[in-house]
């Protein structure tokens, strides 16, 4: 659940997972929702999130940014291997995860692309809050 009271002052600079206690992708159980692994990178002008979501498709992705929270949900169709299952080390199910990014982002410019099972989201900062390097001139 989104809890605005937990927003830390540095939340705008340090995205953190909103729901850290979701089901890890481990045991095989159909119909479960899994928490995908993600890299979160702060590039100054934008925050980039790279998420492993194998087996999904761009059409099934739902990326939403609301009240400073970026949430990702991907529906993954069930697939089964032919014949008798001998080994099952991972399960197949939907992906869901959300992050509190805080304020200062331009929601209208968020871009996402899905390629080779990896979802990449670019969340640009508003121009007013982007870090700006001040050049110091010699006196």
């Amino acid at each position, binding site marked *: 659940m989104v809890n605005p009271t937990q927003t830390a002052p540095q939340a705008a600079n340090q995205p953190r997972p909103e729901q850290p206690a979701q089901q890890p992708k481990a045991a095989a159980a159909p119909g479960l929702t899994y928490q995908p692994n993600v*890299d*979160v990178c702060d590039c100054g002008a934008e925050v980039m999130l790279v998420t492993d979501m194998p087996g999904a498709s761009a059409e099934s992705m739902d990326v939403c940014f609301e009240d400073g929270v970026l949430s990702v949900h991907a529906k993954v169709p069930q697939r089964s291997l032919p014949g008798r299952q001998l080994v099952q080390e991972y399960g197949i199910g939907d992906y869901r995860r959300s992050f509190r990014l805080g304020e200062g982002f331009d929601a209208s410019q968020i871009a996402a692309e899905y390629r080779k099972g990896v979802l*990449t989201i670019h969340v640009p900062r508003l121009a007013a809050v982007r870090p700006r390097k001040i050049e110091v001139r010699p006196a």
Partner: protein
Amino acid sequence: MPMYRPLPGAGFAYPLDELRDELDRLWTSLTAAPPLHGWGVRPGSDVFPAVNVSESDDCITIEAELPGLDANDVDIAVSGEELVLKGARPDPHQPTESATAKPATAETGTPDRQGTSGQGNGERHKAVTWHRRERGTGSFERRITLPVAVDASRVEATLVDGVLTVTCPKAAERQPHKVKVRAG
């Protein structure tokens, strides 16, 4: 303030000591860091990639999740009853030759799409801050023992949306031979 201490030479476990030891064990298990390279794999396991394997009458099918990899990035070798999966995923944190040659893809690790243009590659990689690194990188190799010998010349593999599927037809002598029963 009273202090409770086990009696010297007591022949039974002191309840408070047991409780403390149990809490120590619980705390240790909770604070143990998960492996960084365990993408998609059961927590605590260092096996990558995780696989699902099935067997039908005429073939063995192996499925593995390899997000971010191209078909050219994966080597599959089959001999007899063993299948070897090898490959690598580059570290986006490190400047690589591919990143230098092709700086526009997010996968190869040029995260500053718009921020710090005009700087060198090394400087650009230093400029970013990683808040979370859960996706593993580096090379991997996994050997899978198949339940029966397969025909290596007819093995086929596809990699779609990060899901690798390898179909290994069973060797002819291993396929079930149906016996026709004639009416007497």
